[in-house]
C-alpha cells in the first residue's frame, strides 16, 4: 500500500483487488483452490483494509458501478464548467453597457482571479476534484473572455500572443490540480500559437493558420514527443492527453491535405501534393497502430486504426462512389471491415500466445 503514490496507481491496485476476488471465487467454484474459514476471513479483512486505505487517501472507485457514477460526475462537471462560462459571457453582454470603463476592466480582471480562488477552495475541500474541474474550466473561460473583451474595449488588434497566454494559464491550472481537461485546452491553445507564428514567419497573416494545415504538424509532433517525457509520469493520464492531442493535430492536418492539396505549403502542384499526403497518411496511421500495439498504448493504437479507416473510406469514396452502385460500394466497405477484423483477430491471437508463453 505504501508504495502507491498517485491516484492512478491506487485505482489500478483497487481494480486488481476486484479482479482477484472474482478469480478467487471462480477458482473455488471450479475446485482448484479451497481456503479454510480462517484464511478466508484473514484475506478478506486484509483486502477490506487495503481498499479502505486507498479510498481514504486517493478516493478511488472500489466497484464497477462506482466507476460509472464517477464518469457521470466528470461529464456533469465538464458541462457545468461550460455552462458557467456561457453564463459569464451572457451576463457581461447583458450589463456591459451600464458600466464605466474602469468598472468593466475591474470586472474582467477580477473574474478569473475570483474563479481561481474558488477553484483552490474547492480543491482543498474535496479530494475528488469534481467541483475543482468545473471551476477550473470556468476560470479558463473567464481568462479567455478577459483578454478578448479587454482587447475589444480598447479596440486593439488581435494577436497570436493571446493563445500563448491562454495555453500557459490552462497548463498551470492543469498541473496545479492534476486535471486533464484544462491540459487539453492548454495544449490546443499552444498548438494554435505555434501554427499562428509559423504562418507569420512565412509572411502570411497569423490568423491564416487554419487555412494551412501543415502549420499544425510541428506542434502536433512536439506534443507526441513530450508525451514520453519523465515529468508527465507524476500526473495520472497526462501522457495520454499529450499523445491524443498531438496525434489528432498531426492526423487531421494529413487528412485535410490528402483531400485538398491546394492548402499545402509544399511548392508543388495540387495533384502531386495529395498523393504524397495519402501515402504519408496510410504509412503514419499504420506505423502508429503498430507502435501502439508494441508499446501497449491502446490510445495510440486506436487513433492509428481510426485514421487508417478514415483515410481508406475517403479513398474508396473517390475511387468508386461516382460510378459504382451504392449497394456495391457499401458491400465493399463492409468486406474491408470484415478483413480488418480478421487481421486484428490474428494479431490479438498472436499477442495472446506471446503473453502465455
Amino acid at each position, binding site marked *: 500500500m505504501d508504495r502507491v503514490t498517485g491516484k492512478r496507481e491506487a485505482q489500478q491496485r483497487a481494480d486488481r483487488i476486484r479482479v482477484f476476488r472474482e478469480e478467487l471465487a471462480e477458482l473455488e467454484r471450479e475446485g482448484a483452490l479451497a481456503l479454510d474459514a480462517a484464511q478466508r476471513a484473514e484475506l478478506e479483512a486484509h483486502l477490506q483494509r487495503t481498499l479502505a486505505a486507498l479510498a481514504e487517501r486517493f478516493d478511488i472507485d472500489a466497484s464497477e458501478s462506482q466507476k460509472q457514477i464517477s464518469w457521470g460526475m466528470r461529464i456533469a462537471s465538464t458541462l457545468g464548467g461550460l455552462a458557467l462560462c456561457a453564463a459569464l459571457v451572457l451576463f457581461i453582454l447583458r450589463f*456591459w*453597457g451600464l458600466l464605466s470603463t474602469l468598472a468593466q476592466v475591474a470586472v474582467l480582471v477580477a473574474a478569473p482571479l475570483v474563479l481561481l480562488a474558488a*477553484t483552490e477552495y474547492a*480543491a482543498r475541500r474535496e479530494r475528488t476534484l469534481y467541483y475543482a474541474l468545473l471551476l477550473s474550466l470556468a476560470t479558463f473561460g473567464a481568462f479567455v473572455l478577459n483578454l478578448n473583451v479587454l482587447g475589444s474595449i480598447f479596440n486593439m488588434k488581435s494577436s497570436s500572443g493571446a493563445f500563448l*497566454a491562454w495555453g500557459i494559464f490552462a497548463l498551470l491550472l492543469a*498541473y496545479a490540480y492534476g486535471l486533464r481537461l484544462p491540459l487539453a485546452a492548454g495544449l490546443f491553445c499552444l498548438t494554435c500559437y505555434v501554427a499562428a507564428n509559423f504562418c507569420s514567419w512565412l509572411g502570411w*497573416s497569423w490568423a491564416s493558420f487554419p487555412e494551412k494545415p501543415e502549420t499544425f504538424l510541428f506542434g502536433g509532433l512536439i506534443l507526441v514527443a513530450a508525451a514520453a517525457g519523465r515529468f508527465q509520469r507524476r500526473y495520472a493520464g497526462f501522457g495520454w492527453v499529450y499523445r491524443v492531442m498531438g496525434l489528432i493535430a498531426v492526423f487531421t492536418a494529413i487528412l485535410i491535405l490528402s483531400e485538398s492539396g491546394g492548402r499545402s505549403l509544399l511548392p508543388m*502542384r495540387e495533384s502531386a501534393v495529395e498523393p504524397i499526403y495519402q501515402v504519408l497518411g496510410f504509412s503514419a496511421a499504420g506505423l502508429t497502430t503498430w507502435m501502439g500495439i508494441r508499446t501497449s498504448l491502446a490510445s495510440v493504437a486506436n487513433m492509428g486504426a481510426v485514421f487508417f479507416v478514415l483515410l481508406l473510406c475517403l479513398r474508396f469514396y473517390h475511387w468508386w462512389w461516382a460510378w459504382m452502385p451504392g449497394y456495391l460500394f457499401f458491400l465493399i466497405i463492409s468486406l474491408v471491415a470484415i478483413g480488418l477484423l480478421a487481421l486484428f483477430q490474428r494479431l490479438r491471437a498472436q499477442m495472446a500466445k506471446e503473453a502465455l508463453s
Partner: protein
Amino acid sequence: MRRRGVLAAAALVLAADGFVLVEAAHNRSGSPGAAIELTERELHMTRPQRDSTALLLELEWRPKREVFKFEDGPGWFDKSKLEELGYDCRLPLTDSSARAHYRGMPAKEAFAVLEYKDPAGAGGGPDSSTRSRLRTVDAGKELAALRKKYADSQRYLIVPALARLFYAEKWDDSTRRYAPGAYLRGAIVNLLVSEIAVPPSERHVLQSLGQTTDDYFATEESRSRGPRYSAVLYYGRDNEPWIDSCRPIPATRR
C-alpha cells in the same frame, strides 16, 4: 507545487492584463495619427446580441468583396500591387495548376488607404444616401510611405487591414467551363479592427436611438432621412482606433 502553480496563474492574469492596458495607453499617448468625423453611413451601430447593452460601431468601407464583377478588372489592386505586398505571382496564369496555386494563398497584413469621399462623389443608385463613403484606394506595407503619399488626414484614413489575392475568372454558362482571360487581383477583405467600442461617456447619444443601423436603414423612410449621428474617430500610435465624441445629426442637416 500546487500553491506555486496557482500563484503563477494569478500572476499571469495580472501580467497579461497589465500588458494590454500599457499597450492601450501607448496607443492613445501623444497626438493621434489621424482624426476624422464620420457619420452613421460609415460607422454602423451594432450590438453583439439583441438584448445586449454593449454598443459597437462597425467601420464600413467599399467596395466589398462580394460586389466585385469579373468585367471590373483588377483596378488599382493589380498584380504589381500584390507583388509589392509580398505575394509571389511568378507562376503563369496559363499553367494548369495556377488556379489551385493562387486560390491557396492566405491573407497578408497590410495598411489600407480609405478615401473619404463627399456625397457628390459617392455615386448614385438606390442606396446612395446610406452607403459608406469610405473607399479603398491603395494599400501598402510601409505606413510612413503611405502617410507621405496620402497626407490629408481629413480625407484619407490609413488603417491596418488584411489583403488577399484573388484568382479572377469568368464562368461561361454555354460551355460550362471557365472562359480564358483570368487575371489576378487583390482586395482588402477585413480591417484588423473593424468594430470599435463606444465609450461609456458617448453611449447616451446612441442608446437613445434604439435601432441598430441595419434595422434603421431597412425602411425607405429612414433611408431618405439619412444618418442619425456622427462620431469623431481617432487612430493612435499603434494604428488602433477609438471614438472620442458622438453627436446626433438633426434631421434637417442629414
